C-alpha cells in the first residue's frame, strides 16, 4: 500500500538515534529529579515533629499547655533565651524557628479574659516551594490555640461561662520572620509567597533567554555550514577569531536587549504587586507595603543586586553562546540543526525545575555537587543567593561559570581554526546505518 509505504518513511525519519537518546536522557532525568525531590520532601517532613518553645511565662497553665502539646505527638523542646533580638535568639539556639510564650500570657487570658500574644520567630533560607514545607511549629501554634480553648472550656479557671469570650480566639500571633541577619514583623508565608513570585519569574525569563540565544547561534552557524557560506568566509583573508567574535557579540547584544526589556517589564510588574498595602493581620503595627518589608529584610533586589543579577545573566548567555557554537558546528542538515539545541534545553531544564521547588544549598552534598556541576544551576539559584546573602555560593558559581565558558570557548576556537568544523558531525543515526551496511 502506498500509504503504508509513506508512513514507514515518515516513521523512519522521526524515530532515529537522536530521538531515542533524547527520550532516554529526559526520562532518566525525570526519575533522578523525582528521587532528589522525594528525599528532600522526606527530610522536610521527618523534622516536622520537632517544636521549639520558650516558655517565659512559666505558669501552671502554660505548663499544662505544653504537656498537652507533647501528648498530641509533638516533640517539644523547651528552650530558654537570653537575647532580645529575634535574629540573635535563633543564632544563640541554633534553630530555625521558635515559639515564645511571653511573660503575662496566662494573666492576660485568665485574669483579663482577653487574647494573649504568642510570638513566633522563623527563619527562611530560600523562596523555593519546598521552603514552605516547614517544621511542625506552624501546626503546633494551631494546636496550642485549640488546647487553650479546650482547657478553658473544661476547667473554667474561675472564669464564668458567660465571660469566656476569650474562648473564640485565645491567642494573638505575633510573627517575626528572619532572613540572614535581618528580621521583620511579618509572617514567613507572606514573604515566601511574595518573594517566590520574584524568584519564579526571573528563572522563566532566564530560561527563555538561554533557549533563544542558543537557538539563534545554532541556526546561524548551521545555516552557514549547510549553505557553505562558512567555507567562503573561512577561505577569505579575515581572521577566524573575528568571524566567531562577530557572531557571538551580535547574539550577545540581541540577548542583552531582550534581557533588559524583560527585566524592565519584570520590575514594573513586581513594583505593581509589591506596592499594595498589606492588611493588618499580616503586619502588626503601622501599615507597610510589601515592598517596604522586603526591603527591610534585604529581600528586595537593590540596584547592586540587579547589577549582580545582570552579571550572572551575561555569564549565562555567554555560556549558552559558546556551547551553541560547538553544537551548531555539528549540524549537517537543517533537521539535525533543530535537534542540536536539545542538550542545552535539558541542562537548563534540570536546574530550572530543581530551583523552582527546592533550595539547592540545603540538599545533600553529593546531589548538590552534581547539580552545581551543571553551569546553568548557578543562574537559576543566583536570585536566591543574592536575596539571602549566600555570597560564597554566588561568587563560586560565577567563577565556575567563567571557567566553564573559557573551556567551551577554547574548544569552539579549536573547532573553527582547525578543519574539524568541516569534518565532524553528530549524525549518530547515519553512523549506525553505515555500520549496519558494513556488517550486512
Amino acid at each position, binding site marked *: 500500500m502506498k500509504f503504508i509505504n509513506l508512513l514507514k518513511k515518515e516513521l523512519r525519519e522521526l524515530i532515529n538515534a537522536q530521538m531515542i537518546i533524547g527520550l532516554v536522557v529526559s526520562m532518566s532525568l525525570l526519575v533522578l529529579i523525582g528521587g532528589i525531590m522525594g528525599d528532600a520532601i522526606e527530610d522536610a517532613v521527618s523534622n516536622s515533629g520537632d517544636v521549639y518553645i520558650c516558655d517565659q511565662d512559666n505558669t501552671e497553665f502554660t505548663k499544662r499547655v505544653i504537656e498537652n502539646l507533647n501528648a498530641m505527638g509533638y516533640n517539644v523542646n523547651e528552650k530558654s533565651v537570653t537575647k532580645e533580638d529575634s535574629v540573635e535568639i535563633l543564632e544563640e539556639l541554633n534553630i530555625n524557628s521558635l515559639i515564645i510564650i511571653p511573660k503575662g500570657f496566662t494573666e492576660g487570658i485568665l485574669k483579663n479574659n482577653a487574647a494573649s500574644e504568642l510570638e513566633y520567630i522563623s527563619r527562611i533560607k530560600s523562596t523555593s516551594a519546598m521552603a514552605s514545607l516547614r517544621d511542625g511549629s506552624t501546626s503546633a501554634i494551631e494546636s496550642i490555640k485549640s488546647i487553650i480553648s479546650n482547657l478553658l472550656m473544661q476547667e473554667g479557671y474561675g472564669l464564668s461561662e458567660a465571660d469566656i469570650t476569650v474562648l473564640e480566639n485565645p491567642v494573638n500571633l505575633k510573627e517575626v520572620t528572619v532572613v540572614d541577619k535581618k528580621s521583620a514583623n511579618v509572617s514567613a508565608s507572606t514573604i515566601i509567597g511574595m518573594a517566590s513570585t520574584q524568584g519564579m519569574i526571573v528563572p522563566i525569563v532566564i530560561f527563555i533567554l538561554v533557549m533563544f540565544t542558543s537557538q539563534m547561534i545554532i541556526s546561524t552557524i548551521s545555516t552557514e555550514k549547510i549553505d557553505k557560506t562558512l*567555507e*567562503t568566509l573561512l577561505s577569505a583573508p579575515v581572521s577566524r577569531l573575528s568571524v566567531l567574535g562577530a557572531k557571538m557579540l551580535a547574539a550577545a547584544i540581541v540577548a542583552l536587549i531582550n534581557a533588559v526589556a524583560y527585566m524592565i517589564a519584570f520590575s514594573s510588574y513586581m513594583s505593581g504587586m509589591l506596592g499594595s498595602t498589606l492588611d493588618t493581620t499580616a503586619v502588626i503595627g503601622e501599615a507597610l507595603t510589601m515592598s517596604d518589608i522586603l526591603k527591610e529584610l534585604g529581600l528586595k533586589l537593590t540596584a547592586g543586586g540587579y547589577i549582580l543579577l545582570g552579571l550572572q545573566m551575561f555569564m549565562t548567555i555567554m555560556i549558552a553562546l559558546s556551547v551553541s557554537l560547538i553544537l551548531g558546528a555539528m549540524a549537517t542538515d537543517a533537521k539535525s540543526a533543530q535537534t542540536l539545541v536539545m542538550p542545552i534545553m535539558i541542562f537548563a531544564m534540570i536546574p530550572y525545575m530543581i530551583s523552582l521547588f527546592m533550595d539547592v544549598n540545603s540538599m545533600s552534598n553529593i546531589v548538590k555537587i552534581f547539580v552545581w556541576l551543571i553551569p546553568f544551576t548557578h543562574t537559576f539559584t543566583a536570585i536566591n543567593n543574592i536575596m539571602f546573602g549566600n555570597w560564597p555560593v554566588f561568587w563560586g558559581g560565577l567563577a565556575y561559570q567563567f571557567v566553564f565558558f573559557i573551556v567551551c570557548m577554547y574548544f569552539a576556537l579549536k573547532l573553527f581554526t582547525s578543519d574539524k568544523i568541516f569534518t565532524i558531525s553528530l549524525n549518530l543515526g547515519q553512523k549506525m546505518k553505515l555500520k549496519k551496511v558494513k556488517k550486512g
Partner: protein
Amino acid sequence: MSTILEVKDLSKQYSKVLAADNVSFSIDEGEIFALIGPNGAGKTTTIRMISTLIKPTSGDAIVNGYSINDKPEKVRESITYLPDEAGAYKNMTGYNYLKFMANIFTNDKDKAETYVKRAVEMCGLGDRLNEKIASYSRGMIRKLLLSRAVMTYPKLAILDEPTSGLDVINALEIRKIIKDLANKGMSFLISSHNMLEIEFVSDRVGIISKGKLLVVGKTEELKQRYNVANLEEVFERVVLEHEVY
C-alpha cells in the same frame, strides 16, 4: 611564466576513505587548470585542502610562495574559493552580498567599491540585485557567487563546479569571463565532471579517480596521446586503463 600553485604529494585520509592520494600538479600564472573526475573522486577534497579549509594528512601546496600548512593566512590573501553547491545569505539582497564580501577582502573603501562594480557588471543580474537572494533561482545564485569569486582579481581563483546549474547560454558566458580574466593574468583551478565543457575552457587538465591523479596534460596532447576525438574519451580510456591494474 611563474608558478602560482605547486601541489606536492597532497593526501587526505578521512576516517574511512583515502580521498586524496599523493596528488601533485602545478598551475602557472594565467593558466586555467581543470581537475576532472567522476563523483567521489576527490576533487572537492583536493580543492578544499588548497583553499586552507581542511588540513592535508600529508604533503603540501605552495600558493603564490606560501605553504598551505605553514602560512594559511597568507594563502587566503591570494585566493578566492567558490564552493560546490554554495548558497548565500538569503536575507541579503544580491547587491548587499557583494558589498559585504568586498569588505571582507579589503579594508579600503575605494577598492571595495571597484570590486562591487566589477561583480555587478559580470553577474548580469541587473535590477534583480536589489532583491533578496531568497528569491533567486539556482543559476542566478551561481552567477552572483561566481562574480563574487573573481571580483577581487585574486592570483588564484578556485572554483568547484563553476557552471553546475547554469544553462548553456550562461555557462558559455561564464566560460568567456574566465578566459578573459586568465588572459589578464589570473590563474584558475576549476573542477568539473563535464568533460566537453572543460575542453573548451581549460589549458591543462588533470584526471583524478579514487583519490589518485592519473594523468596531467594539455587537452590536445592527451587527445593525441590516446588517439581519440575528445576529452570524454580520454577520460574513459584513462580510467579503464588504470582499473586493469
